[in-house]
C-alpha cells in the first residue's frame, strides 16, 4: 500500500458561502412570515367579530371590563349628575336609531380628565372626558359626539380592534413565549392600547355619516353637528392636548367640510346645554 502525502482540498465539508447571505435571507423570510401571519389573523378576527352576539360582548366587558379605560371615572355628585344627563341623551338617541340595533345597551362613563376626548370601549361603554364639555356649546353638539361613538358600537368597531389586538398578541406570545406575569401585562397593555381606538379613517367617516343622520332623525335638523370639530380646528394651534385626539381620529378638512355641508342643508334651532354643565366645567 502506498501513501502519498497531499492535503485534501478545502470546501468539501464546509460550505463556501458568505455567512451574511443566509442571515439576510432567513431574517427577511422570518419577518415576512410573521407579518403575513399577523395580517391574516387580524383579518380573520375582524371578519369573525360580527358573529359575536352583542349580549356576549356586554357580558365579557361588563363593569369589570372597564380596566381597559385609561382614566379614572368622576364619581363626585356633579359627575354623576352629568353622567345621568348624558346617559339619558344616549338612551333617547338609541331609541330612534332603528330596530336592527335593538340588542345594544349603552353605559356612559365620565372620565375625570381635562383632556378633550370621547371614545367607545367594548361592551357598550361610551367614555366622555370632563374636558370635552368645554368644547361644545349645545346639546346638539354633544349628541353628535355621542351618536358618533354609538355608531362605532353599532358597527362593532371597538370589539373589532380589541379582537384584532387580542389575537395578534396571543400569536406573538405563542411564538415568543412569556411567563404568567408578562403574559397579563402584554395582554392588557396591547389590548388597552388598541382599545384606545385606532379606528380607521373609513370607520370614522362612516360613523360621522351615521351620527349626522341620527341627529336629523332625533332633532329634525343637523345643527351643531360640526360644533366639536370646529372647536378642535380652532384650538389645534393653541392647546397641546388636542393632537392626542387627532392621532386616533384623523380629522381631515374633508370630514369637517362634509359636516358643515350637512349642517347647512338641515339647519334648525340648537338646544342649549343645561346650566349644571356650565358649573361643571368651571372647575377645569
Amino acid at each position, binding site marked *: 500500500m502506498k501513501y502519498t502525502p497531499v492535503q485534501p482540498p478545502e470546501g468539501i*465539508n*464546509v*460550505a463556501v458561502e458568505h*455567512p*451574511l447571505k*443566509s442571515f439576510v435571507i*432567513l431574517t427577511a423570510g*422570518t419577518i415576512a412570515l410573521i407579518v403575513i401571519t399577523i395580517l391574516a389573523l387580524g383579518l380573520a378576527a375582524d371578519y369573525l367579530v360580527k358573529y359575536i352576539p352583542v349580549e356576549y360582548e356586554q357580558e365579557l366587558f361588563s363593569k369589570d371590563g372597564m380596566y381597559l379605560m385609561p382614566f379614572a371615572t368622576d364619581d363626585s355628585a356633579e359627575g354623576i349628575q352629568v353622567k345621568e344627563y348624558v346617559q339619558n341623551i344616549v338612551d333617547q338617541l338609541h331609541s330612534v336609531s332603528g330596530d336592527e340595533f335593538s340588542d345594544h345597551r349603552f353605559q356612559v362613563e365620565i372620565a375625570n380628565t381635562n383632556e378633550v376626548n370621547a371614545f367607545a370601549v367594548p361592551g357598550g361603554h361610551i367614555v366622555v372626558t370632563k374636558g370635552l364639555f368645554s368644547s361644545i356649546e349645545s346639546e346638539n353638539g354633544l349628541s353628535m359626539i355621542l351618536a358618533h361613538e354609538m355608531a362605532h358600537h353599532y358597527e362593532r368597531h371597538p370589539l373589532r380592534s380589541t379582537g384584532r389586538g387580542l389575537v395578534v398578541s396571543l400569536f406573538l406570545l405563542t411564538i415568543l413565549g412569556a411567563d404568567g406575569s408578562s403574559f397579563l401585562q402584554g395582554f392588557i397593555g396591547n389590548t388597552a392600547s388598541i382599545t384606545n381606538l385606532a379606528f380607521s379613517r373609513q370607520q370614522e367617516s362612516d360613523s360621522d355619516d351615521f351620527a349626522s343622520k341620527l341627529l336629523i332623525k332625533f332633532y329634525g335638523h343637523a345643527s351643531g353637528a360640526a360644533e366639536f370639530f370646529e372647536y378642535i380646528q380652532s384650538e389645534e394651534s393653541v392647546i397641546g392636548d388636542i393632537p392626542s385626539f387627532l392621532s386616533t381620529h384623523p380629522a381631515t378638512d374633508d370630514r369637517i367640510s362634509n359636516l358643515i355641508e350637512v349642517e347647512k342643508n338641515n339647519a334648525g334651532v340648537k338646544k342649549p346645554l343645561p346650566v349644571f354643565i356650565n358649573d361643571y366645567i368651571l372647575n377645569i
Partner: protein
Amino acid sequence: MEILILVILLALGYFFGQRAEKKHFKSIIAREKASLTCPTVTMKTPPPIHNHELNSKLVTGSVVISIDYFKKFVASLKMLFGGRVTQYESLLDRARREALLRMKEQAALNNAFVVMNTRVETSSISKNSKRRNSVGAVEVVAYGTAISLGKKIDA
C-alpha cells in the same frame, strides 16, 4: 431596546466569530501541511514491517469550540425551515481537524510514523442548559494507536 441589544450581540458575534474562524482555519491548514508525513488511518492491522519491533501507544487529542452568537442565531432560524446548517458545519469541521492535529502532535512526541485505528467522536456541551439563548459548544475527541519503530531485529 431589546432589538438594539440583539443587534449589538449579533454584530459582536459576527465580527469576532468570523475573525476567530478565519485565523483558526489558516492555522489548521498550515499545521496539517506540516504533519503530512505522519498519516492517520482507520486500519486496524499495522503495516508488515519485519526488520523492526513496533511500539504502540494510545494518543488522544481533544478540543472544545464554542459557536458565536451570530451563527447560533442564523442556525436557529435555519432550523425553522430546514436545510444544510452551514453555520455548524464550519464549527464541526474546525473542531474535528483541530482534534486530529492535537492527536498527531502527541503522536509526534512518540516518534510515530503512523496513527492506526483513528476514531473521532463528537459531543455537545451545554446542550441541557435551560437558557434558550445560551451559546452551545462542541467537544471533539480524536484517538488512535500511534505506531513507532522500536529495536531493530537482526534477521
